[in-house]
């Protein structure tokens, strides 16, 4: 099912989505935590029309900013997700024009997988492909006007996704923990608990 993060991330944007479907997974307040100047999203009756113009900044949720796509057609009316993986780039094989990725199945409870993808299939996202980069690979049914087709879509995420507040908060907590633990180094080797 399409969820709101798909809209916010620019996945299959520029179409009208059923707000009830969207809100089935997310609370209504969520869209308005997104800064409007980063993502143009408007509510029309019971549908959301979203037109991404720049990277959305999620203030309190994802550590990542999703790269706004520039390749959607304005006539996509509906998208139903059938299979989704989260992936990370393990290596870039430039000679072969591929990258190797590790995949976690987000749809089914399956063991992690690996495989090679063709760089040429990325439609402009190639510059994001470096070891450690994260992406999502979605397969689903897409309705364009009256035509339905099954599509495969790979989208890379990129930082910055950590807000200044999140970084400051994490650093403060981390510093406190580090400072505390730095003083807790046991002065002598641990003695095993008697049995």
């Amino acid at each position, binding site marked *: 099912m399409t969820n709101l993060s798909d809209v916010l991330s620019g996945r299959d944007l520029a179409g009208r989505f059923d707000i009830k479907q969207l809100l089935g997974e997310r609370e209504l307040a969520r869209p308005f935590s997104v800064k409007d100047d980063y993502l143009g999203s408007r509510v029309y009756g019971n549908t959301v029309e979203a037109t991404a113009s720049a990277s959305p900044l999620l203030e309190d949720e994802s550590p990542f900013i999703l790269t706004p796509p520039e390749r959607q057609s304005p006539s996509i009316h509906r998208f139903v997700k059938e299979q989704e993986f989260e992936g990370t780039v393990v290596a870039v094989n430039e000679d072969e024009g*591929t990258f190797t990725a590790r995949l976690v199945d987000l749809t089914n409870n399956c063991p*992690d997988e690996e495989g090679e993808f063709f760089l040429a299939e990325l439609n402009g996202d190639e510059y994001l492909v470096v070891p*450690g980069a994260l992406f999502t690979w979605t397969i689903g049914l897409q309705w364009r006007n009256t035509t339905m087709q099954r599509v495969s879509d790979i989208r890379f995420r990129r*930082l910055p996704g950590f807000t200044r507040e999140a970084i400051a908060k*994490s650093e403060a907590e981390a510093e406190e923990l580090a400072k505390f633990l*730095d003083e807790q180094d046991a002065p002598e080797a*641990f003695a095993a608990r008697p049995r």
Partner: protein
Amino acid sequence: MPQKLLPPAPDELEVSVFGPGYGESVLIHVGSGIWLAIDSCIDPVTGRSAPLGYLESLDIDPKTAIDLVVASHWHADHIRGLHELFSTASAAKFCCSSALCRKEFTALGKLYSGGKSRIPLGPEELYRCLETVSERIRTTGQSHLRWATADRLLWQYVSGGTPPSLVATLTSLSPSDSMISRSLKFMVDSSAAIKKGCVKARLTAGSPNDVAVALLLNINGRKILLGSDLEDEDNPLFGWSAVMSGMTAPGSRSGTFKVAHHGSVSGYLDDVWNTILEPEPLALLTPFRHGKHRIPNAADRARILSKTSQAYISAHPENVVRPAKKPTKIQGLMDGAIRNRRLAAGPIGHIRWRASICNPADKGTVDLFDGALALLDVV
């Protein structure tokens, strides 16, 4: 009862090495029901920490049995499930490199731990462990943390009686001061870049591994060298060369070796095999299948086998296990987008060595479970 499910006798030493192809964990029974855990990996079938599942299968309560948990470093293949393991082993103490407690690293761990990514990142797992350490210290008022550095005694056990029937010590051999300094620079640079907004969304393993904790276990005079992912760069300040320049390792001679860095050439130093290991040592290792990396490769295997015929590996380093097919229409589209699709890890292979504690001359018995095999049998 199947042999695998029989726990060791109180006077029996056990070294169990787990590894599914991507992941490594070592679990040691030092005698008298006392267990030490080094690193953790996930059993792909159960999704749980492999050493934890193994102890439970032996009907041993990890809560009281595990005395010490060591995080040899933070890489995802050594740390998945470590927090589950450590939090379950509620009486255990914790050891890792002091470099992993610096705020630059823990801040990344904190940031990652708030995310929803299911890709294991490493720092967040360690951060959770350090939080638990902190809680235990605050709750009990007792020491629960000791930094692992070169030539540092971490843990010891002396049984009652005169003379004591069991004396066991665990000493860290690395990281050296130079390794710690360099790893801090790596972490500072990496975390600054990630926070600033580089394309790379996660901290990736640097090379060489500057935080790897190699360990020397001594049980009644029987020595076991645990190589972690320590590498060498022919510099006496770093890696195995630093260990060989240290105070502990040169005076020891181990009969058992958890081979460093999955048997790769970067983890190999001739001096280690010739000077601080006995001839024909028992060598235990896990493979590393990650992307196109296949370690140990044929040359690595030949090099190890030239040093010992008693070498065992937890899983085949080059096995390809195909994943289950998806529904036809989805599978068709997937096939057009991805090639060489394979499982990242197979079954959790398990090498188990047991030997008498009372008789240091006892060579013991090696049992191989769930795909573990002799290195000689890797074709």
